[in-house]
């Protein structure tokens, strides 16, 4: 029998209770887990989630994100300073363009792009550090405008009035920045797909969102205003220069690092004064900026020529550098027109025409052609100094005419042609009288005709001769180096032209002989070795035949804006050892100031020059590789007069040349200049450097601003860069205190021919002449040595020892070695160092002056005192040194200013005693130094030993 168990009343709810208990356990567990885990991020209730509308990208972007490769062009239109980036070229690289002051779009393609074959356009882009790498800001712009995430999407009001107010409230107006982005599909390699459609987004930029992050932006074709979630689009608000590199000078070539990139081929520095007050008279040699338009005649065959036959541009600022034009006959009219003009608007435009190149005529192989010129009007008659538009031609040197051209009876022009006729040409000799009678400035009643049958005899000729000076490198077609030029070689070479007998500057070039059609030229070159020719080899002799008409350019000048005078402060260049003037030969750098310059006679401080070149070349302290100079920020692009004025870039001008492709020179075989036959084989390493070409950069530099920094404009990059003053502190110094070498004389004794010293003091007077002879004698160890023999001739010099010796020998001069042997050696042979005593001590005396430094600079009063004293021959000591291959001896005069200072006056002297170079007196030396080296010659006169360590005050 089953025992019935009494059940609990809850038994019946057991399942419910089980579920309830399980729920409680589960909730408890969940609560435990919830509190055990970190808090989830709070829900962002302020962020509105938008469903994408048509055209929008995923992730709440205004349009599907564009990759860098997809973006082809970006144009930023702004009220001032719009710009664009666009892809171009074989590699589909980005290029830059900008609007100039007149609103015209200019492609940023500065001269460096053409001048430097190794140049990469992308090096023009400014970069920003991003971690350890640098990214071009340009790419940031593309990223910023091609990938715009938004946080708000605000519908535009439909009502015109309300919409306008809405747009205004979000900062949209006619002046808003517009961003146009052209994009296309690309393939796997990032290249635009063929036939892919170019699409465009146009964005308009409103105000910054009041929260401080993001901008209001509109996209053409959408009735929404977007608030961007980030500031990346802000790149579109940057000025154009923001994207341009701050580089000021170019970097050297990698291979030049193995040489010495401080071998600058030119350095020049000017201090300028800017004149802009109305009424100021323009002076010769200045840089004049005028408001003018330029006219040039249409060439025959131009498309859509203007009806009057001229190409004219708008009035704009033009700058003429009168200093560069001075002395050139072709610019004499321009010089005459500008020099003496006053700054300000001209009462009526002034016309100045400059002749251009002669127009060439091709002589047909078959029959010659007859050119008939029908002169309709003589526009102006030109002399060397004026351009006249009235009266008759008279004795004008040339005329500018309007004419029609008929060749073999066929009229060639559709609009009037213009040209200049040089009336001195033989071709027009028979017409000169008739032309002289023509009226100027009006249409001729009866056109004047000139017919010419051009052939080799009747046409004016211009000869072009091409001369080879050096073969720098020889390659085969695979660009492997070769020793000898072959018929299919590629050569790098230096050459120059002689045009009508006038030698042109040396240039460099590369030529593939396999493509050369001139067989004679190839023949001349084949078999030649690399190196410099002793005599240039003429490679080509060509003749061009010219019409009687030449091209021209006419300037219609409305206003003289301002002018800048330039004072050349410093000029120097690296000189190869074989080319140096021995007087300055101890330095790599030679002063290249013109002879008329008051500082041209001074040698330059080597350390100063080298430091400066290191700065401009961007030489690091631990490398010889030139990396160029860069500034802090690019502030403007384009070197227009307006920009020059805005940044005060007229204060200083600087020109610096960096050699490219440096190599050690070798001598080439001697060849016949005409037929190229090898006359003598030479294979000799020279102690000289060569370079393929040079890259010159002109810098325009402002005064220091309140922070002590400067603006620098660079013509190679056409930018204005803000730079710390550290790099240009040298501008604060003058030539004498900073650039001039502090040693009066440093010339190798082997180059000295004669030294004359003269004393002019109350207790010491007379003259001693030391004449050198050099005998090159064989050395036991091989080679030769320079045995210097010195003859001393006294004039009115009071030395009893010397007088006795001369009397004993019966001569009027002494051979120093013999003299010392006799007096100091008591008849025994004496030595000093590696020389006989006489020569040895003479070298010590010479070195005394070498080791003497200028101790200070003379004040204006001191200089005046020296000049006054010079007029009275008040010098106390005169030192004249004749150096081999120098045109004239250098003369040092010493004037004692006071107890401790002796002024030095220096000049070059002609044989008749006149000054070949203007005397300069800028420095003084110490009395101690003076007495030491002047006393050394006194010691020589008395055959006394000269030991520098204890020699002083004439001992």
């Amino acid at each position: 029998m089953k025992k019935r168990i009494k059940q609990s009343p809850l038994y019946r709810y057991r399942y419910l209770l089980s579920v309830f208990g399980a729920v409680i356990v589960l909730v408890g567990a969940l609560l435990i887990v919830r509190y055990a885990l970190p808090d989830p991020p709070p829900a962002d209730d302020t962020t509105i989630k938008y469903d994408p509308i048509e055209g929008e990208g995923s992730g709440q972007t205004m349009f599907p994100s564009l990759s860098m490769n997809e973006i082809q062009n970006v144009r930023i239109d702004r009220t001032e300073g719009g710009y664009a980036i666009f892809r171009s070229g074989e590699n589909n690289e980005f290029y830059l363009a900008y609007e100039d002051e007149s609103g015209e779009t200019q492609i940023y393609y500065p001269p460096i792009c053409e001048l430097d074959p190794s140049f990469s356009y992308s090096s023009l882009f400014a970069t920003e550090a991003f971690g350890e790498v640098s990214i071009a800001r340009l790419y940031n712009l593309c990223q910023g405008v091609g990938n715009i995430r938004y946080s708000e999407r605000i519908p535009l009001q439909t009502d015109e009035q309300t919409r306008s107010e809405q747009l205004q409230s979000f900062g949209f107006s006619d002046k808003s920045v517009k961003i146009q982005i052209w994009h296309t599909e690309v393939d796997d390699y990032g290249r635009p797909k063929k036939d892919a459609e170019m699409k465009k987004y146009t964005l308009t930029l409103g105000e910054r969102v009041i929260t401080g992050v993001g901008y209001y932006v509109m996209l053409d074709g959408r009735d929404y205003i977007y608030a961007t979630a980030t500031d990346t689009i802000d790149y579109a608000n940057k000025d154009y220069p923001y994207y341009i590199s701050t580089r000021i000078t170019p970097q050297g070539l990698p291979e030049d690092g193995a040489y010495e990139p401080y071998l600058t081929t030119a350095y020049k520095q000017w201090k300028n004064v800017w004149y802009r007050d109305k009424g100021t008279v323009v002076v010769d040699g200045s840089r004049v900026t005028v408001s003018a338009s330029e006219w040039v005649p249409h060439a025959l065959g131009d498309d859509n020529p203007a009806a009057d036959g001229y190409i004219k541009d708008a009035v704009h600022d033009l700058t003429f550098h009168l200093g560069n034009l001075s002395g050139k006959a072709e610019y004499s009219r321009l010089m005459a027109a500008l020099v003496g003009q006053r700054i300000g608007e001209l009462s009526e435009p002034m016309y100045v025409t400059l002749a251009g190149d002669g127009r060439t005529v091709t002589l047909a192989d078959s029959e010659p052609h007859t050119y008939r010129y029908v002169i309709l009007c003589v526009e102006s008659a030109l002399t060397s100094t004026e351009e006249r538009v009235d009266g008759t031609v008279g004795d004008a040197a040339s005329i500018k005419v309007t004419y029609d051209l008929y060749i073999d009876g066929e009229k060639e022009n559709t609009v009037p042609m213009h040209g200049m006729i040089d009336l001195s040409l033989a071709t027009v000799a028979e017409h000169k009288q008739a032309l002289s009678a023509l009226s100027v400035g009006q249409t001729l009643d009866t056109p004047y005709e000139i017919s010419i049958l051009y052939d080799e005899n009747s046409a004016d000729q211009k000869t072009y001769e091409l001369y080879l000076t050096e073969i720098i490198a020889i390659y085969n077609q695979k660009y492997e180096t070769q020793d000898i030029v072959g018929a299919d070689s590629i050569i790098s070479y230096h050459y120059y032209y002689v045009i009508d007998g006038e030698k042109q500057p040396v240039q460099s070039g590369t030529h593939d002989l396999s493509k050369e059609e001139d067989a004679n030229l190839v023949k001349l070159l084949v078999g030649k070795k690399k190196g410099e020719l002793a005599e240039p080899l003429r490679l080509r002799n060509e003749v061009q035949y010219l019409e009687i008409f030449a091209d021209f350019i006419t300037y219609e000048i409305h206003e003289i804006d301002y002018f800048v005078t330039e004072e050349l402060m410093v000029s120097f260049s690296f000189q190869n050892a074989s080319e140096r003037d021995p007087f300055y030969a101890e330095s790599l750098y030679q002063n290249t100031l013109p002879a008329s310059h008051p500082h041209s006679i001074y040698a330059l401080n080597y350390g100063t020059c080298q430091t400066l070149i290191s700065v401009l070349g961007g030489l690091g302290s631990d490398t010889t590789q030139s990396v160029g100079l860069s500034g802090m920020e690019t502030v403007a692009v384009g070197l227009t007069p307006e920009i020059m004025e805005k940044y005060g870039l007229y204060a200083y001008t600087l020109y610096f040349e960096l050699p490219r492709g440096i190599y050690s020179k070798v001598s080439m075989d001697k060849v016949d200049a005409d037929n190229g036959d090898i006359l003598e084989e030479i294979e000799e390493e020279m102690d000289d450097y060569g370079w393929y070409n040079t890259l010159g950069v002109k810098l325009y530099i402002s005064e220091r601003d309140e922070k002590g920094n400067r603006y620098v404009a660079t013509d190679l990059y056409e930018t204005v860069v803000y730079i710390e003053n550290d790099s240009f502190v040298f501008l604060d110094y003058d030539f004498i205190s900073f650039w001039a070498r502090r040693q009066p004389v440093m010339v190798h004794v082997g180059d000295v021919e004669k030294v004359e010293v003269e004393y002019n003091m109350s207790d010491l007077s007379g003259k001693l002449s030391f004449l050198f002879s050099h005998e090159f004698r064989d050395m036991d160890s091989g080679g030769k040595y320079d045995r210097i023999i010195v003859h001393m001739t006294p004039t009115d010099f009071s030395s009893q020892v010397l007088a006795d010796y001369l009397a004993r020998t019966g001569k009027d001069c002494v051979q120093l070695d013999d003299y010392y042997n006799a007096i100091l050696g008591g008849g025994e042979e004496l030595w000093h160092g590696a020389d006989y005593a006489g020569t040895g001590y003479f070298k010590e005396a010479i070195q005394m002056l070498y080791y003497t430094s200028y101790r200070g600079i003379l004040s204006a009063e001191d200089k005046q005192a020296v000049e006054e004293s010079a007029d009275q021959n008040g010098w106390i000591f005169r030192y004249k040194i004749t150096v081999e291959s120098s045109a004239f001896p250098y003369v040092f005069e010493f004037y004692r200013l006071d107890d401790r200072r002796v002024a030095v006056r220096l000049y070059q002297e002609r044989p008749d005693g006149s000054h070949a170079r203007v005397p300069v007196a800028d420095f003084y030396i110490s009395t101690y130094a003076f007495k030491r080296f002047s006393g050394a010659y006194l010691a020589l006169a008395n055959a006394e030993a000269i030991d520098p360590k204890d020699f002083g005050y004439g001992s």
Partner: protein
Amino acid sequence: MKLSSLFAPSARRRTFAVLTVVLLVLALAINIGLPYLVRYSQLYLDTTPEGLYTLTDRMVEECDKLFSEHSLDEGEIKMIFCADSDRLIGSAPARAVYFMALQMQRKFDCFSVETVNLTYEPGAVAAYKTTSLSTISETDVILVHGDTYRITNIDSFWTTASDAYWSYNGEYKLASMLLSILGTQRVAYFVTGHEETVYDAENPTSEGSLACATLYDLLTERGLRTDMLNLKDLAEQNGEIPEDCALLIINNPREDFSAGVALDSYYDRSECEIIDRYLVGRQGALMVAKDYRITLKNLENYLLEWGFSFGDTLVKDEEESLDDPDDTNTVLVGQYNTDEQSYGYAIYGDFAALASSPSAIVSDSGYVRCSFDEAQQIREDGDFYTYRTYAPFLKTSAAAKTYAYDSVAEDYVALDNKSGVLDLCAASVRETTDSQSSESTYSYVFAAASASFLSEELLSNTSFANYEVISSLVHNIARVDEHASMDLGGTSLNSSSFGGKQLLDTTIATKKTEVRDSAPPYKVIETNYALKSGMKVFIIILTALPAVAALTVGVAVAIRRRYL
């Protein structure tokens, strides 16, 4: 041996026992006394092939000649080693120097050697400290003659290359020191003739003497006699600075030098030229304190040749100046140059290195500026081997400004708002190197742009460091060093005894051998400064010989007794 053996009936046995005792006592006595014999009686053999422990004949001749030129009393020249003799013998570099000195003492009566234990007698060499903070180490050697002395280090008697001893140059060094201390007594001359403030020894109560009393004490303490020298008179006679001059002092001149000099004369000597002949012709020293208010054209032009360009403005330093009643900021606290390589630090480094340095005060001062190039050094005119180097001595803080005198306002007004560090005083050192002997000699010019730089007020104030600093400066610039014949061992290739006694095997004499741990960080676990055993003298053998002999005898006796 038993004690009873002494009383044994056998006379033979008693004799043997006594003999044994005597021998033992003798052996003990020799053992104890031999080092002293070795030390003071030169009882040792020099087994070094270089003759490191033997005076050369040339040295003896040199010293004979030198000492005969001076009538020297016994022990008048004293060579003091700052360590006990056993320590000197224990150190190979010191041993060579010490034994050389002992030989000198033995050969020359006037030469004596002392050793001082600095630990027990720290005051024994206090007189030779340059400043109160100067230190003298155990490796220092002091050569003394009367008031003149030279301190040098043991290492300076050796020439080294790459941290290894290369040759023993001690004889040349010692001879040079002897020449230097045996020179004529040195005099500090106060230049007169330009209204300078000078000490007149014949009239110590004169105004000038009272104003220079402490300066006089300082000079005397540095072993210098003082005198006056009228340069104007000297110039008129075309004379020259006396041979015994060790220091010229131009203290606050009010008139210019070289007035009226004949500019068109070659042979006439101006006052500045006379000074210059002294400075460039000998190891001269000149100390100038010039009032910035007064322009002395010729003197300033002359000092310009030494690198000093004087400003004529007053210097005020708001940050580093002492409080004064009128709050003028002109009582300047001179800033020490803390660069350990600088000239100034070499003079006052003991002070500059202190956490709380005593101040050197410069009052009512202008400034000097270096007229040399950026390197603050120039090569002397006409000579390849001589340089002049400008060295700032005391400076202002970066807050210093210059003030020019405005005659209308009758006060000094700020020139501009620029501030910067200015040199209050500086030294210029001329170093010329003899191309033959390669020895350098030095001349010094010290200049301060303050009339009160050497004043009683500043020098006598013991809370300032002025006295100590200037004392050290005088000690440095007023010394004249002579150089012995380079054939004694000069380091010139022209010397017939180049480098002295060259070690035949430089590897056997390592100055500093470091044994390092084989693993990073490669700590030094052993440093050996001693010469190797092959170089040691025979002294060890001699010292051990008696003990070995006694032991041998003992063994022989024992064997004989037992078996024979």
